[in-house]
């Protein structure tokens, strides 16, 4: 509710496009989960897009118009939203969705209509695989899982790892399986694999199994709530094994739920404000933090990134033709974005650096950057 209210306020503060303006304008569609289970993420991405829009409100000398359609975190609604943006709002490009499985409902529709679409955070490889018009601004599960394995082997020097997977989330299952593959390839040993379900509160059974196997690292690429609870229960049971997790941990709630127990937790991430090196990134961080009065997070950063990528592609294409914009997006090389220098790789997955962060003194501290 608070989030909705904030959005409401920002929407008032941002000058609305005068209705019936003479110039044609560039229409960019957004389909995001503004309500429902993934609302928190959708709203953060939206904030990021709004800030980026404020920084660059004109493309090709024309005013940009944003059209937002809520997906209610639901597949059927996501498909409807994309259809509506294309047919009714006649958008030139689409940003969204946040969740991979909902993006997979929307991307085929945009593909048929030949409208370029870019997702800020859909990490499942299938989202862009074999599609001409689908892109993403984040790295894929494949890359993140493998980089985590490299960090575990090379930096943490762990030989024996235990893995805890939230099997109700395809994101967690994907990360864990790529981690295990790479970890074994690099000479590590997976001593135990255990499963949990989103919403589980008690992990003592799994921790007891881990305790018997004596691992040097626990890889638990789950969302923040599960990660925070895991850390607390590990501490309660007297295990000091470090935890490594994925970008799902990078929300303030991890710290509020986990408290001192999450100190020393490592995770791979898309973004950290201290790792921002580009000029546009610094400008974005400043604009975001003065507009919302809170620290910039990865979701908002990736939302803004999507907007800048689309803007850049439209500028390079010099037209609003879907095919030309898609071609320009495909050809993006060394673009200085918010989350790093971006090159669009094969399968439309960006090639960019992965950051490793650590919880230190109740804050996310920047640890290192790893090249994929």
């Amino acid at each position, binding site marked *: 509710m608070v989030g909705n209210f904030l959005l409401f306020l920002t929407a008032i503060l941002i000058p609305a496009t005068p209705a019936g303006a003479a110039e044609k304008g560039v229409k960019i569609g957004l389909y995001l989960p503004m*309500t429902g289970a993934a609302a928190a993420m959708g709203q953060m991405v939206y904030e990021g897009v709004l800030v980026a829009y404020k920084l660059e409100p004109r493309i090709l000398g024309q005013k940009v118009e944003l059209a937002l359609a*809520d997906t209610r975190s639901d597949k059927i609604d996501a498909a*409807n939203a994309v*259809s*509506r943006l294309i*047919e009714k709002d006649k958008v030139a490009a689409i940003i969204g969705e946040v969740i991979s499985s909902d993006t997979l409902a929307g991307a*085929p529709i945009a593909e048929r209509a030949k409208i370029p679409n870019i997702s800020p955070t859909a990490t499942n490889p299938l989202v862009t695989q074999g599609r001409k018009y689908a892109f993403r601004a984040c790295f894929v599960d494949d890359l993140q899982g493998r980089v985590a394995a490299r960090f575990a082997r090379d930096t943490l020097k762990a030989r024996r790892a235990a893995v805890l997977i939230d099997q109700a989330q*395809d994101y967690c*299952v*994907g990360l864990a399986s790529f981690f295990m593959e790479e970890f074994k390839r690099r000479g590590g040993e997976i001593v135990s694999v255990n499963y949990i379900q989103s919403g589980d509160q008690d992990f003592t059974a799994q921790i007891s199994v881990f305790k018997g196997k004596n691992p040097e690292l626990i890889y638990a690429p789950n969302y923040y709530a599960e990660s925070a609870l895991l850390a607390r229960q590990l501490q309660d049971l007297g295990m000091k094994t470090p935890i490594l997790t994925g970008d799902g941990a990078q929300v303030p709630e991890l710290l509020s739920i986990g408290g001192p127990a999450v100190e020393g937790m490592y995770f791979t991430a898309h973004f950290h404000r201290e790792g921002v090196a580009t000029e546009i990134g610094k400008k974005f961080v400043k604009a975001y933090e003065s507009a919302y009065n809170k620290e910039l997070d990865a979701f908002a950063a990736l939302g803004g990134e999507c907007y800048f990528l689309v803007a850049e592609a439209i500028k390079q294409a010099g037209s609003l033709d879907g095919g030309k914009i898609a071609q320009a997006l495909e050809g993006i090389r060394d673009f200085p974005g918010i989350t790093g220098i971006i090159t669009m790789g094969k399968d439309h997955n960006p090639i960019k650096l992965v950051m490793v962060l650590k919880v230190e003194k109740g804050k996310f501290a920047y640890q290192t950057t790893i090249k994929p």
Partner: protein
Amino acid sequence: MKKAWLNLAALAALALILGAAGQWANEYQVRLLNNMAIYITLAVGYNLINGVCGQLHLGPNAFITLGAYTAALLTLTPPEKAQLFFLTPLQWPLSEISLPFPLALLAGGVVAACFGVITGFPVFRVRGDYLAIITLGFGEVVRVLANNLQGLTNGPMGLKGLYPYTNLWWSWGVAAAAVVLVISLVNSSYGRAMRAIREDETAARAMGIDSFRLLMLAYVLSAFIFGVGGGLLAHLITTISPSLFTFFLTFNLLIIIVVGGLGSTTGAVMAAAVFTMAGEWLRVVEEPAVIGGINIPGVPGLRMVIFSLALLLAILFFRRGLLGRREFSWDACGRFLARLRNLKLET
């Protein structure tokens, strides 16, 4: 005889509209029409067991899941399946089979119906709240199984990249067939017996009605309809995962049949149509607008607020739903027209 002609004419009009929509409507409109038809199919099936027989069945999501997964697994080609199931390979016979869409839809219905037969025995040993809880349980069981049987369903990653077979002809053809089937069943002696069970089961049994057999018939038939509807839904959105089939799907259907009037098939059809369209029409309230020179920013989520208010009003003022237990009929239409004509004559 006249009514039969009118019914045929209505079907022909539907076919004409579909033909025109296929020709001139844009993809967004076609998608909404497809959604509408699928919800009509599901609501009509649900109304049979819940409205006509009066059994509070809360597990349609289980049957829709079964139908969707069965149909999807059968239409995917073996190479596509090998690509999807990269973590745990798909069980053997399924990994090699690929069927045309109509057969896969049918198979989805049959699998759902078989599950109906199996679960029907425990379900109809109880009535009322207990029946609701058992069916609710089955709904959850199927979803949890879909999440965990990775070698069969690909777990939480779901099935992706289905071919969009569902078009207007398939969705509306199935919807029309389901409506005709259910209406003729309800108007037959079976239907009358089902309604008797709804009003007073003990009295119905005293009259010699075999309530178990009839309830089972309705339950399995509705399961079949859910299965086919699930297959259509899967091939419309082209990606399914267990998160699509939560209790909320059942809840939406329950809203539809309650608003339409429990027990009224045509009421369920109308409510399903309104339900699917309203969700999209109300998007307007979430868009920024300029009214009288004042900028009104869009508020995401407002559409659900209005939706629930409308629902509240509908339940308050139409206690038994829009149609109650009445049905739309040509006779009623004729009477209505006659009344209009009389009014005109009087003035």
